[in-house]
């Protein structure tokens, strides 16, 4: 009898344990205590003399955060929706110290939580049971990567992947014709350009740069090396972005005028027909703005030789080295680079490239950056247009680079995947894809560097981050318009220097802790304030905080 009772008790205990396991929090056990909202947190610059745009970020109550700016920023909302400004629990940031576990296992509020990252192979996401929004269609999402476009397409055709990124232009017709696949064009605004660094001869001579601008047949490049939907760039910024195309259109192709300009500039043809020699630097990495870098480099090499008598050596560089050297203005020849929009504002294109502090094209031109500085604090699009027209005209006149193309690119998915899309800004949300089965497999072109995206810049890292970590605002699926994500609304004062964001109530992080205003402040402070103990990250650069907000608070002096 006693034995039976004991057995029943044990059975009850086991049953209770199983029930608890099934109904309890799905996230990992939390080795840190949740801190309830009591004292509001804030981060503030001592003064606006540090040069950045943000004066302070402060929680004013549990569900309100106030951003005070040093100067108006018409792109504030668009920037705040960007993935690097994702929100993680204050407790988790403190627990990890801004690095270590944080780089591999982000804790966010998104529809998926990261459950495994097997380095070199895949990242596994599991649907977050307590997600505040609509539950994802697939219970599990697996992110894999393959650097070769042919291998990605093969996976899709074999059915081992549900969606892949960055189709090779040559593969587009095949995918279009395949009834088992669907083609999804990527609408992210971008530009491919040929850059010069004006601290190196002969590119210190504006006439040489102008001559090359006139002597390159950009239409020929777009017609022969870009997929349908691409267009020749009339301006650096795509016209889909307000004020992107203010001012005069770029030079038409005119080889005779270009040669006359080179003759007059003191670069006559030699006996062998060559005026001077240079190098064309590029990286062999697929991007929407430059889908076939090697072939375009050879085409430009051929055009320079045939049209202008400039002999160029093609130099392919390792990607990281190329970015480091080109963006620091260390390449003596021509470099082939491009830009994909991070957020839908003209400042994202012009201010970054032609601002006073960017050494990429050598010595910055005040004719360009002074107009940009003035325009960047004007919220009204029409009022800012004359200034952007001036800036674009100065770019055309001084030719720090030649805008070549706005490239079209495409991803592909199985026809059976419903809801497949590629947004113009940000990454595809796995939660919106329905593969018609429990597991979604998404293959991108490289492994993420880390999953703490406050300190990452590459799209391959930002994509997985976006599945797990949410921002205050989000971009639309087919436009750059922002809407509330963790904030229900963000409103500004009359001169757009104070933004007050009201947060969504009842949101829970993957670790089970409740979301509040202090989490927002802690997440922003970790990236924005160089003196914050959690300002560690992967590289410690926090590039997007520094670049989009014009500098870090308490940045160490160089």
């Amino acid at each position: 009898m006693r034995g039976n009772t004991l057995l029943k008790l044990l059975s009850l205990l086991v049953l209770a344990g199983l029930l608890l396991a099934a109904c309890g929090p799905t996230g990992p056990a939390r080795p840190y205590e949740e801190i309830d909202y009591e004292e509001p947190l804030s981060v503030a610059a001592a003064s606006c003399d540090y040069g950045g745009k943000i004066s302070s970020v402060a929680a004013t109550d549990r569900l309100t955060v106030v951003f005070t700016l040093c100067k108006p920023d018409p792109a504030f909302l668009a920037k705040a929706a960007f993935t690097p400004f994702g929100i993680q629990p204050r407790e988790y940031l403190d627990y990890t110290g801004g690095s270590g576990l944080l780089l591999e296992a982000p804790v966010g509020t998104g529809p998926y939580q990261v459950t495994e990252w097997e380095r070199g192979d895949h990242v596994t996401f599991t649907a977050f049971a307590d997600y505040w929004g609509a539950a994802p269609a697939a219970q599990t999402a697996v992110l894999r990567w393959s650097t070769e476009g042919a291998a990605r397409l093969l996976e899709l055709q074999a059915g081992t992947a549900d969606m892949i990124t960055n189709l090779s232009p040559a593969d587009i017709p095949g995918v279009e014709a395949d009834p088992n696949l669907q083609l999804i064009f990527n609408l992210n605004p971008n530009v491919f350009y040929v850059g010069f660094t004006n601290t190196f001869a002969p590119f210190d001579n504006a006439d040489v740069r102008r001559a090359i601008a006139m002597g390159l047949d950009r239409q020929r490049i777009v017609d022969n090396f870009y997929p349908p939907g691409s267009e020749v760039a009339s301006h650096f910024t795509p016209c889909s972005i307000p004020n992107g195309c203010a001012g005069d259109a770029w030079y038409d192709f005119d080889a005779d005028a270009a040669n006359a300009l080179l003759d007059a500039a003191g670069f006559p043809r030699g006996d062998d027909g060559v005026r001077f020699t240079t190098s064309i630097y590029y990286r062999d990495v697929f991007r929407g703005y430059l889908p076939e870098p090697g072939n375009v480099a050879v085409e430009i090499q051929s055009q320079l030789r045939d049209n202008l008598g400039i002999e160029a050596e093609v130099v392919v560089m390792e990607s990281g080295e190329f970015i480091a050297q080109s963006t620091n203005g260390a390449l003596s020849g021509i470099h082939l680079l491009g830009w994909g929009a991070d957020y839908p504002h003209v400042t994202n294109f012009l201010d970054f490239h032609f601002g006073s502090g960017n050494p990429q094209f050598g010595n910055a031109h005040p004719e360009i950056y002074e107009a940009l500085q003035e325009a960047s604090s004007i919220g009204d699009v029409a009022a800012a247009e004359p200034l952007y027209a001036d800036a674009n005209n100065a770019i055309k006149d001084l030719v720090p680079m030649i805008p070549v193309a706005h490239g079209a690119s495409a991803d592909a998915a199985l026809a059976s995947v419903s809801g497949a899309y590629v947004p113009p800004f940000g990454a595809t949300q796995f939660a919106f894809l329905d593969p018609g089965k429990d597991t979604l497999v998404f293959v991108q072109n490289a492994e993420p560097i880390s999953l703490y995206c406050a300190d990452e810049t590459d799209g391959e890292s930002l994509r997985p981050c976006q599945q797990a970590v949410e921002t205050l605002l989000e971009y639309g699926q087919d436009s750059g318009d922002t809407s509330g994500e963790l904030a229900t609304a963000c409103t500004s004062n009359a001169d757009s220097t104070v933004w007050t964001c009201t947060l969504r109530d009842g949101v829970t992080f993957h670790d089970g802790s409740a979301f509040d205003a202090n989490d927002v402040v802690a997440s922003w402070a970790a990236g924005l304030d160089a003196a914050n103990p959690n300002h560690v990250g992967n590289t410690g650069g926090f590039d997007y905080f520094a670049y989009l907000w014009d500098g870090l608070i308490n940045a160490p002096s160089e």
Partner: protein
Amino acid sequence: MTSIPEAAALPAASLRSNSLLRLTLRRLTRQRNARVGLTILISLILVAAFAPLIAPYEPNRDLIGIEPVTQRQKPCIHLLGCPADQPQHIMGIDANYRDVFSRVVYGTRVSLMVGFTTIGMAILVGTLLGAVAGYAGGWADNVIMRFMDVLLAFPGFLLAIAIITVLGRGLQNALYAIAIVNIPHFARVVRASVLSIKEQEFVAATRALGASDTRILFLRILPNALPPLIVQGTLGIAGAILEAAALSFLGIGAQPPTPEWGTMLGTERNQVFTAPHLVFFPGIAIMITVLAFNLLGDGLRDAMDPRLAQVSKPR
């Protein structure tokens, strides 16, 4: 009683006909594999020499606006049903709208040049080092051969990449790298030959006649050490062509727009499913060239190996 060697009793003309070169050639031409290798090699040399006559287009000239071609166009051969109103491109068009056949033809020049130049350099330096080491012996032998051992301790291809990293990318530096990697092989072969030949009686006789060491080494010993060197060199050319193609495939050898087979393969590696002709033809060209040198090398080894030789008897 002293027996007179059989050869000594032969007339002078017969002796000449049995000279090493003729003997080797005769043995070589008796082997089917070697004949195939030699035929392919001669054909390749002719293709390289007459490339401007054989190739219908300039290898680096794109055909945009010249002919109605499309990017990565498939081969068009009129005899195989390609419409007569379309321009014939028997190996198709590449991503830069260039005729692949013309590039493959000109690529023969690059590959043969790579093979002969690198192995020539390696033989020159390797022979010198091996000969000095073998003949001088002692500390010179130790220093030279230990240095060769150090070079051999690294995987050849990795060493070539390391050397290019230091020298910088490009075909010329790739040639230096491949040559350096191959030097130890030739040094060892020559040293071994010199060690055995220097003990022979005719060397002692030459020395007794008062010849200098340099004269003995370069005029008496080295000419007799050539046979294994030729075999090693022929096989080495095949390896050098492969190594150069691999380096170019990785983007650190020949640079665009040089029509080099490895570069052609590497540039279009992503199109293996959509435009297989762009990797097939350069790949086949590499295979045929390497095969030719390997067949010839094997044949030469057999022809020069006295153990395998069937000395023709005087009739």
